């Protein structure tokens, strides 16, 4: 992916740029909102990673508002030291697609970058998601593995759906909390792991190939190959 990083802190920028490049992305980095806006408006990017507060008169929110006003729909991930709920809402209202509070683990940032960059297109609605022999029917709300029906509760269904929509990508615990449960705070608990392991048990019972994998220091991933 071609990513534009607008971040004024040199240390954070270096760390993020290096990490994203190692993950196989191309990264352009500028240090202020004005340059960021100019680049974002004049060159095609797959994703913008913006600091919420930027020097030079154009902050992250202004930048996104301006871009959206010009009809530019490039996905935007905000990085911010402002954690209050209102700030998050402000960022998303302005047209941001995701909001990550500093300090963050790089694995969390990478997972969100990949999720945003490879969002499914809206014009081709999917009715079935498939990973190996696991099938999830979005219309019938059923889950089958190798043709065998698996009973899941509504929340487990949504959890599995989210994992399968991002099959092959890391999904972090916070992302699950936000996207599946709509909790935008840290419950300071490992309950999310219990939910995933319960779902994993249901899916893998009677099969020898596990589908949901734990990615150390990051989160979970569903994929066919171990």
């Amino acid at each position: 992916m071609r990513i534009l990083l607008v971040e004024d802190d040199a240390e954070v920028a270096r760390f993020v740029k290096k990490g994203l490049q190692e993950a196989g992305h191309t990264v352009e980095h500028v240090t202020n909102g004005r340059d960021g806006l100019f680049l974002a408006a004049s060159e095609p990017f797959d994703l913008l990673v913006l600091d919420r507060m930027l020097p030079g008169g154009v902050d992250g929110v202004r930048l996104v508002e301006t871009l959206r006003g010009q009809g530019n729909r490039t996905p935007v991930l905000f990085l911010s030291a402002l954690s209050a709920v209102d700030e998050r809402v402000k960022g998303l209202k302005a047209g941001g697609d995701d909001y990550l509070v500093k300090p963050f683990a790089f694995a969390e940032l990478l997972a969100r970058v990949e999720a945003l960059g490879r969002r499914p297109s809206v014009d081709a609605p999917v009715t079935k998601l498939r990973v190996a022999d696991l099938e999830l029917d979005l219309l019938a709300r059923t889950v089958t593995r190798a043709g065998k029906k698996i009973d899941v509760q509504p929340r487990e269904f949504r959890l599995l759906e989210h994992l399968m929509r991002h099959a092959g990508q890391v999904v972090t615990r916070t992302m699950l909390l936000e996207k599946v449960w709509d909790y935008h705070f840290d419950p300071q608990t490992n309950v999310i792991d219990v939910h995933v392991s319960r779902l994993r048990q249901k899916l893998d019972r009677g099969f020898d190939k596990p589908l949901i994998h734990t990615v150390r220091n990051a989160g979970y991933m569903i994929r066919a190959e171990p």
Partner: protein
Amino acid sequence: MTAPAPPARNRPLPGLRPALPRLLQSAGLRFAVLFTLVFALGTVVLVAVLWIATAASIDRQLLAAIRADAVALAERWRTGGESALIDAIEERIATDSTNQALYLLTDRQGVKLAGNLGAWPEGVEIGASFQRTSIVHEGVAADARIITRDLGGLRLLVGRDEAERVQLRLLLTEGVVWSLGASLVIALMGAALIRQALVNRLDPALRTAMQIAAGDLARRVPLSGRGDEFDRLAETMNAMLDRIEALMQGIKGVSDAIAHDLRTPIARARSKLEAGLAHARDEGELRAAMEEGIADLDQVSRIFQALLRIAEAEAGARRAAFAPFDLTEMLQDAAEFYSVAAEARDQQLTLEARPGLRMVGDRDLLLQAVMNLLDNAVKFTPEGGRIVLAAQPQGEGWVEVTVADSGPGLAPADRARAGERFFRADASRNTPGSGLGLSLVRAVAALHRGSLELADAKPGADPPGLLVRLRLPRAS
């Protein structure tokens, strides 16, 4: 980016004796002037009414008397002729004790037949009514009001000498001027009193505000006990000051907590990283030390997040975001989220709440508070225990959310301290947690103007279990 610092002011700190504002800026003076104007206007209206009632009515009476006199004399002439008329005039002159009545009767040639005027006044035509003219009455020039009549060739003049009435009017005018002057003086005195009273009533508030500005936040504006507008203002000021003081204490609490409890994990992380750097014998050990250090830093970040969240709730700014929501649904959500954790520990987590309980509040913060309570319950209740999450409407407009468990409960001494930041009962030292969970619950309760109570779930039983009762108003 920071705004440039304001220029240093050379003004000395205000003293404790509030100086009176310059006269023209004084609100007290403006009120006083307003009072004077209103008072003076009232006096003028009063005097004008009095004037019309006295001076003008004297005039009217005079005219009525003249007319009646003239009519009566004309009647006498009609019934008794000239001699009767002359008799009547002479009789009237004789009996007029005030010596104000004027009569003159002449024949066609102007020869005087009767009366107390020497000659027909100049410029007076027959048929004039209520004419004002100068006459010579008993050798003295005077003003008079007269009526004249033509009675079959005889010319009759009836009038009244106005000299005394002019005198009376003069006296009246003098009185009015004096009383207006007096009332102006009284108004000015009243104005001065009003201004002084205003200054006196404002003075305590002003002094208090100055003391607070000088740093003494414990000061409050004394009330006069009269319950008037100034007391209301003082009460409002005091309520505002209480709030500011609570906020300041909150901030102080947070900084104390940060100083005390964030240093520990930071120090831990630092020593792990340093020890790793100094003593690791291979890459594996170095990597392990770094991972532990990062885990400690993550914990710091989590504590920080929790503290900010508590501060957010305590500051009360989120009251603006209050909205109605379905409490039962929210509790179901929390119970569902935690039921798997309870099941993993063989515990039974049940929800007792009738569907559709609604309230107004911050759903997100309340959800987090309830989840903190459930987290504690799941953590501290032994395997196989029971946890009951319940919501009960209480009387007028209140709802009670309770979490009861079958765990060891809390000693009464610890109950009071639970909810203080970072307090952890001795028994729980070895369970993971920051000690901030109940602080948040307490802050959220306070934000909703509700309360948090801890009790034994089953008093007398062993273990007694813990009951956490969150009492919340349903409408904000």
